[in-house]
């Protein structure tokens, strides 16, 4: 196939943009799992909630209000969930957790339908980020570049916090061995709470960021859930490196698969996941060696 450079750059940018969106979602989920051994299937519903809150706020106070307040609102929902449900389910087995959060998906799905209705909402790209930029001979929407930049910025921040600060060291210690961390005087329970809320906030943020690209519908959380789970299982649960690697693999395989081998594209990523699980059952970069 003869494709010029512009084609490859364009697709690479598309892949990067998808990867960064997934990274924002999966990092929260993966650290929550790594630290708490808690499987939160309702993470996708929080993302949908972020998109809805952002859309509502954008209608009132413009895009940036939604962008900044939606993560806060979703983190607030996270606080409610943690104190009402998650804390009690911490010691239950993975199946009970999967089922409780599956029930939560049902409940949150209908709650968003009750509050915002069944119709898709749309939200406009802010004026400062609309338009296109010429890059290596191709034109690319500024907003998508903004998503890539945001993903990179969040990755850098998290890498710094997790790798270079005391609270990061505490989180890593908790992921590695929570009993031992607790023995060393770390308040693991409070750490869990903070990480859970930050993870929910990031889910809300990715919802707010994705809202102008996709239409905001009640089932958007269900649609994104499977890709997110694939990302964290390929990457390995609990690690930042795994989340970014998994996101990049998913984004590139999905995007290039769709343009180069359209018939195989949808099966390709699942086959890849199955292969990873067979060869390395705990993913490529698990937090625990």
């Amino acid at each position, binding site marked *: 196939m003869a494709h010029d450079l512009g084609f490859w750059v364009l697709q690479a940018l598309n892949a990067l943009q998808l990867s960064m969106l997934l990274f924002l979602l999966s990092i929260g989920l993966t650290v929550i799992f790594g630290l708490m051994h808690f499987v939160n299937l309702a993470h996708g519903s929080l993302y949908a909630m972020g998109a809805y809150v952002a859309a509502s706020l954008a209608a009132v106070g413009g895009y940036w209000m939604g962008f900044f307040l939606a993560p806060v609102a979703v983190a607030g929902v996270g606080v409610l969930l943690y104190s009402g449900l998650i804390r009690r389910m911490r010691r239950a087995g993975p199946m009970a957790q999967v089922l409780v959060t*599956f*029930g939560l998906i049902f409940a949150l799905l209908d709650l968003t339908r009750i509050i915002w209705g069944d119709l898709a909402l749309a939200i406009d790209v802010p004026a400062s980020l609309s338009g296109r930029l010429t890059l290596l001979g191709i034109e690319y929407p500024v907003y998508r570049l903004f998503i890539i930049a945001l993903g990179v910025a969040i990755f850098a921040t998290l890498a710094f916090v997790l790798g270079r600060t005391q609270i990061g060291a505490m989180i890593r210690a908790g992921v590695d061995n929570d009993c031992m961390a607790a023995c060393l005087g770390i308040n693991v329970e409070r750490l869990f709470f903070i990480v859970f809320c930050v993870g929910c906030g990031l889910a809300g943020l990715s919802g707010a960021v994705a809202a102008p690209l996709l239409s905001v519908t009640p089932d958007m959380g269900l649609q994104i859930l*499977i890709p997110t789970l694939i990302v964290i299982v390929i990457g390995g649960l609990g690690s930042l490196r795994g989340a970014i690697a998994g996101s990049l693999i998913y984004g590139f395989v999905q995007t290039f698969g769709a343009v180069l081998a359209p018939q195989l594209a949808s099966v390709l990523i*699942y086959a890849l*996941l199955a292969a990873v699980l067979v060869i390395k*059952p*705990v993913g490529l970069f698990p937090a625990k060696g």
Partner: protein
Amino acid sequence: MFRHTTLRYATLALLLAGALFQALTAGYFGLEILTEILILAMLVLALDIVAGFGGMVSLCHGALMGVGAYAFTILSTSAGIAPPIAMGGAVALSGAIAWIIGAICSRSHGIYFIMATLAFGQMAYSYVFEAPIFGGDDGLSGIRRLDLSLIGLNLNDSRTFALFCLVLLGAVYGAAVLILRSGLGRSFSGVMHNEQRMRALGLTVWRVKADVFGLSGMIAGLAGTLAAQHIMYISPGLLTWTVSGEALVVVILGGLGTLVGPLVGAAAFVVLKHEISGITPYWHLAVGLILIGVVMSRSNGIFGWIEKRWGARLDRRLADATRSQDQKEVTTDA
């Protein structure tokens, strides 16, 4: 190992009586609901065998059911094979696919097993959704029901079809009990309780897991062929992971690892769904809250809860009986 207690026999008899009563007296709508319950019951029975007795919590059973439905449809319409043979072929195919999935996933446990089966289920879904011979999003129609006019039955009548499903469900239940009581089923439960010990005893663990998973897949495939004949139309929606999730919900609502419980769960789930969607369009909310409540209550579903209470009373009565017998012996000795 699976055992029938008095309570389990009584519940089975009650369910059977209820189903027969409904099948003989209900109108068209009631029969449709009954058939829906029977088909769902077959699917959750398949899931309970692997999840309840082997700890293999599968999220691909919906997809296996879909494979059965699609295979039956393709074989009986496009390929022009006689429906009974098509049914057998569909069951064999879903069993074979389930065996392969079980063999591949036998090494993973817990959440990784759930994710791996989810991946295989989604793979089947995307393939069916994309491939042109499966009709894509539009699905396939023109499915004919089994022709049993030789023995004087007309399955196009909903009452006969419901009874036909009931007979098949009974056969499947018997097969499930036989599987669980066989050497294979006992080894399977042993693997759930202590995989290392079973390996030390010389068991090929992955074979046992794959074999039971394959048998369970055959049951799911049979449920799929019935679902296709019931609605006479199939779409990729049959294979989505939420179908598997709902099946898991039914197993949990009923009582995991009791075999009888999931049947109760299936009946409760379908009736609840129809009752609630009659009142409000938001029946997912109610089901979600009930599910959260059941799991948080830490009891093993509806039937598990009943069994626990009944079992406690039975134990007490037995203890009382033995105590009074002891006293009698003491007096005779004196």
